[in-house]
């Protein structure tokens, strides 16, 4: 299989909208199922995509979530507008979180988001600055 690009699914993610958070990842999951991708790989992609989606909802002013399908890999890309990640090394540490108490009451902010994304992907790139964050997570097929 080559790295030929096949298709992109895109979703707008709204900041602080906890009722809708997860809709994009749910749709990505259904689309991947309809493409006949292996269930274990879909599960890994769904976890990555959902963690990224929740991060956009919690930490940014809003953004976009993309799922790019290639012949030999799936790439989850997120682009958000927001304050960026101040300390990536700390953010990659299990248990470290800058989430507020109100976010924790909703079940998030356990400090497992980025570590989970890294755990389930084969490649992870993070470009962050004071105006926003770009995350690219790759899962090989």
């Amino acid at each position: 299989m080559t790295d030929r690009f096949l298709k992109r699914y895109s979703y707008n993610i709204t900041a602080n909208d906890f009722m809708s958070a997860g809709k994009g990842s749910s749709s990505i999951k259904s689309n991947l199922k309809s493409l006949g991708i292996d269930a274990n790989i879909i599960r890994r992609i769904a976890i990555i995509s959902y963690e990224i989606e929740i991060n956009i909802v919690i930490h940014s002013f809003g953004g976009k979530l993309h799922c790019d399908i290639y012949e030999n890999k799936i790439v989850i890309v997120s682009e958000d507008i927001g304050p960026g990640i101040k300390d990536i090394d700390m953010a990659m540490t299990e248990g470290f979180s800058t989430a507020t108490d109100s976010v924790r009451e909703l079940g998030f902010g356990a400090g497992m988001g980025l570590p989970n994304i890294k755990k389930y992907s084969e490649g992870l790139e993070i470009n962050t600055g004071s105006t926003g964050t770009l995350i690219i997570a790759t899962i090989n097929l």
Partner: protein
Amino acid sequence: MIIKEIVDIVKADVLTNYNDGNTELKYGFASDLMSDVLAYARSDSLLITGLNNPQVIRTVEMLDINAVLFVRGKVPCSEVIELAKENCITILATEYTMFKTCGLLVMNGMKGLEIDD
């Protein structure tokens, strides 16, 4: 452990049921932190939680977990029930605390997950 046994052991109300009577849930995973659930739970687990919002259902949907047990007398909100129906997820609710619920299930043979499983 099958759903019927779980219902009997923790005296649960069955709010939605999509499990075959013989489908076995091998493990229990108890948490109110959904990122921990995403990090450690497996698809053949029962999620035991006191968190009552739609993200509980979104979390189990991503993991292919098909049964959730709400503890401490939490009555799942309508958004939770609707989302569970959309995703064919079984919802149970018990008056017992999380500690007592887990204790009873373990005493009756349900296994806990190891972090490295």
